[in-house]
């Protein structure tokens, strides 16, 4: 399901299946994109942040038109305990590779991989000197 922001329009509530993974796409070229993601985060139920949310930063191939601070994005990932993936959606190879990663994550979040759950992502997020 693709949406431009949250909350999702309520008229389609009955047509929606269970949501296993929420990917927030941030375009590095647009400050508006980051702001939109930050406001949409407020509409996500807290239980999703146990591994079912991830941030996808796109446009990293063009650093010269970067409009947002990378620090801000990384801090966002830390605050919400969710992984931050970097990619360049305009290049087909990277796009395919990113899609495969997301599908792998989605499979785990949906419970299709025995022995691994979404909570594993959270433990991977912890820094090595945190213990």
């Amino acid at each position, binding site marked *: *399901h*693709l*949406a*431009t922001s949250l909350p*999702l*329009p309520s008229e*389609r509530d009955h047509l929606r299946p269970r949501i296993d993974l929420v990917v927030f796409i941030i375009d590095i070229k647009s400050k508006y994109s980051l702001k939109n993601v930050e406001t949409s985060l407020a509409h996500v139920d807290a239980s999703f942040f146990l591994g079912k949310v991830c941030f996808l930063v796109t446009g990293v191939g063009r650093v010269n038109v970067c409009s947002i601070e990378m620090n801000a994005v990384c801090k966002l990932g830390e605050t919400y305990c969710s992984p931050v993936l970097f990619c360049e959606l305009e290049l087909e190879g990277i796009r395919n590779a990113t899609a495969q990663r997301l599908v792998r994550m989605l499979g785990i979040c949906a419970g299709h991989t025995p022995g691994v759950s979404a909570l594993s992502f959270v433990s991977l997020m912890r820094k090595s000197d945190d213990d």
Partner: protein
Amino acid sequence: MDETVAEYIRRTVLKIPRDEIKMMLQKWGFLSEAQLQTLNFHQIKDNISQEVVQLCEENSADIKQAAALDIIYNNIHQNKRMWTVYQMKKSGEELDYFDITDFKKKFKRRLRSALKNVTITFKEYEDNAIWIRVAWGTPYKKPNQYKPSYVVYHSQTPYVFISASVLKSNLPLLCQALIVASNYHDIREMELRSHSLNSLKDIVFKRYSQNFQTYTSKPLQGENVEPENADIRIVQENRSEKERILRLNQEVFGSGPQPKLEFAQYRLETMFKSDPKMDVLNKKEPFRCLVKFSSPHLLESLKSLAPAGMADAPLSPLLTCIPHKARNYFKIREKKGLCPESFVSP
């Protein structure tokens, strides 16, 4: 043949792209077919232009013919120049029959009475456009052929398109000559400028696709937002929003191609509004600021802003009024009165 004329012809030919030289010389019609056959268009342009000058020498070209060639070049490459639109006003409702010879006579007479050293050339085109080329001199110097002004006048309209040379001081004289020759009594500069002459004509002659208010309760065709996305596994959550944006865009911009403008400039003379506690710019003086939008094709890019998600629909009327108001340079002042809103000056 005069040396300056020879040099001018040589430089004009050098400006022409190689694959267009033959066509332009044919349009010019000064050299005979036989002479054109003798030209070798496959050598370097330097040599081609020397050969052309040689042939012109044989035909004893003077500055008039050279100017005619220059008009042809500028008519084909009209988008290289910056054009400004002027509007003329008639004093009464007299329907004058337009006589081209009368116009040319009056124009030349008016200009020459003020300035002896001018070169004036006319050329009429099929779309009712009269192209006028004026090279300016001073009472003591011969006209500078390398910095002429061009005027395009459609005789059935009150609009004149001027591409002035750098010497702006001759503009009032040019405008005077135009109104005298065309039997108008006043001329004013419109705040409309662009490189694309055709687009300027489209805007003032209202030839672009405008959207007329028609009552339709639902869009006429349920347009699919992304027809190429036939994958039913992808669900667009915001489809109704996307359709609303497309519909609003359609209402504002119409469905045809937009006229081509490169700039929109807004000169702000409004008061800076801030939190009074911040103590910024306490003096009640307008905050002067210039906002300039530039693009290879401004109106098309404005049209694609909302569908691309980069701006909210509907767009600000300051941006969308550009073709209707036939201007792309605006002055925005504070509205004096109860509501401190900004308004656009005429």
